[in-house]
């Protein structure tokens, strides 16, 4: 059942949710998903938050276990998994698609229980995107910005939020909100407007032809990688800003009172990513750069029934200090007519 409530009541609704709520809030010059607390500047209007909500499910670093080492003996204690319910509020369609990409990795056999616990305890409230940026190209990757796939979806129309629950979790959450029956036809109209806006964006008609498992070798061996990667600093900003990048490192940290084994985000852009004691197989930035885009556009779809691990959020376009990005790669290596 579609319901609606005045947009200015959204803070009250968030505050009424009895568990933790993670929402886009201002943090210095950035807008990030953080645990909402009274007095924070809520920024639901911000499309593509500076940090993606991926670190709610897959934190930048998290403890996995703790070891106590004494003489020749080792004692192991596991880190507790997430046990608290929480709500992720105001997630956009591209970031939700990214969760599905992460699910393919972390929930495939053998299941990553740290991730699975967080995923299970979360209820996702999505917000349809009425305000695309020039750098948005999510529709190319099968994302519908007007109809995110979540427990509850919100649409902003005029001074009201329209909302609908799609799962039991979502219905349970929404039943506690003060809402009224929705005016008919409004959301359909909003969806139509969103579609129009997205179709007019500069990258709306990006052609992905040829990016599939069948063209793996051809894409891998393309001489174009050398030039495409020339300016790359190997800083990994794109991987940190990316909602689907999930490569990680596992490291040990001596707390002085035992050993903390933690995992942290890692990046295929780093020179030590594949470095083994006896050498590395990706000696220069050309190979590392190629790996990132091949993985997103060719390797991942090849393993996952054609699902790309790019969601078209455009964050890498904004973040790269040298203005490199996935759109350039798609245009350079794609077979479709992408050149303007």
């Amino acid at each position, binding site marked *: 059942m579609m319901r609606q409530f005045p947009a200015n009541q959204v803070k009250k609704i968030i505050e009424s949710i009895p568990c933790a709520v993670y929402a886009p809030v201002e943090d210095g010059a950035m807008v990030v998903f953080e645990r909402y607390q009274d007095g924070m500047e809520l920024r639901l209007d911000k499309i593509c938050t500076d940090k993606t909500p991926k670190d709610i499910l897959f934190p930048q670093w998290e403890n996995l276990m703790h070891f106590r080492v004494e003489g020749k003996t080792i004692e192991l204690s596991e880190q507790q998994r997430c046990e608290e319910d929480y709500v992720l509020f105001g997630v956009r369609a591209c970031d939700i698609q990214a969760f599905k990409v992460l699910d393919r990795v972390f929930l495939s056999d053998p299941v990553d229980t740290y991730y699975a616990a967080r995923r299970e305890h979360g209820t996702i409230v999505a917000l349809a995107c009425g305000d695309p940026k020039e750098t948005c190209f999510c529709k190319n990757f099968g994302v519908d910005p007007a109809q995110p796939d979540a427990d509850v979806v919100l649409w902003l129309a005029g001074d009201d939020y329209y909302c609908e629950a799609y799962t039991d979790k979502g219905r349970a959450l929404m039943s506690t909100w003060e809402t009224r029956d929705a005016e008919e036809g409004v959301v359909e109209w909003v969806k139509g407007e969103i579609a129009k806006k997205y179709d007019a964006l500069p990258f709306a008609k990006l052609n992905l032809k040829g990016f599939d498992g069948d063209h793996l070798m051809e894409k891998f061996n393309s001489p174009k990688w050398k030039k495409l990667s020339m300016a790359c600093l*190997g800083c990994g900003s794109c991987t940190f800003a990316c909602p689907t990048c999930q490569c990680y490192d596992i490291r040990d940290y001596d707390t002085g009172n035992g050993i903390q084994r933690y995992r942290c985000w890692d990046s295929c852009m780093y020179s030590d990513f594949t470095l083994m004691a006896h050498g590395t197989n990706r000696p220069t930035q050309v190979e590392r750069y190629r790996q990132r885009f091949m993985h997103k556009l060719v390797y991942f779809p090849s393993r996952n029934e054609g699902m790309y691990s790019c969601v078209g959020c455009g964050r890498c376009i904004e973040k790269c200090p040298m203005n490199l990005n996935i759109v350039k790669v798609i245009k350079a290596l794609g077979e479709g007519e992408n050149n303007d």
Partner: protein
Amino acid sequence: MARIKQRAIELLSDGTVMRVIGWEKGEGNCDWSPALFENAAEMENFVYGDYAGANLSKYCLKFNRQEGKTLVVLKPCDTLSFRQLLHEHRIDREKFYVIGAGCKGMKDEKGGLLKCSACKGKEFEVYDEIIDDEEAQKTTALMDRMAGVIELEKMTAQERFDFWRGELSRCIRCNACRNVCPACSCIKCVFDNPASGVQSKAPVTDFEENMFHIIRAYHVAGRCTDCGECSRVCPQNIPLHLLNRKFIKDMNELYGDYQAGVGENERTPLTSYTKEDAEPGIVYERGNA
């Protein structure tokens, strides 16, 4: 731009150079990238102008060992970095053909670049030829280069500590500042040594993100030309150039004015000793102030 492009095509075609490092346009209007051009046809995409902010001298390290000469387009401030790399024997002069390109101050999508607001002048330190225009000579620095440092010096030690803790807390240790820095030319960085015990990927302790930048500033002291690339590329908008400028200001005050990357084979303040050098006591006093 047309003159630079034309000249580069000539030099490529007559075999003087085998490749050109310059810029190419991106998807929008302001997102130019450093780019490599290996023949006249590719030069079609070459651009030079308001959005050519990147300092291309660091890329010279990549091409120093390659066959033939590489043409590199450098702005006046970029030639300082190039000169500094020559000083340090990291690149060979004869491997590069330097076109000095006049600069009116560079921009990005948000407007004028921060580094350009403290422009260090219009002189080319190294060049094979200069392609300049009068317009470029007219623009000058908009602010005192040390203004930001002076502001910091006015703070109490605690305020300053809090300021840096706040700024550096955003650091994600991506190493973009290090990787873009022409003074960071080590083949193997000390922070990339897995045996160093420095965990480079996660801000496990506050100590690390603070120390990384402070140690880096020490490592480039006396060699940093203040090209400003560190702050320009920081994805977290940390004003890293302020650390370097503080060192420059201190060295100027203690050992006399010095600009890294100017002059040939000059000994730097930190690698030479004169009787006029400040006594250690002065340094201690300043530290306690």
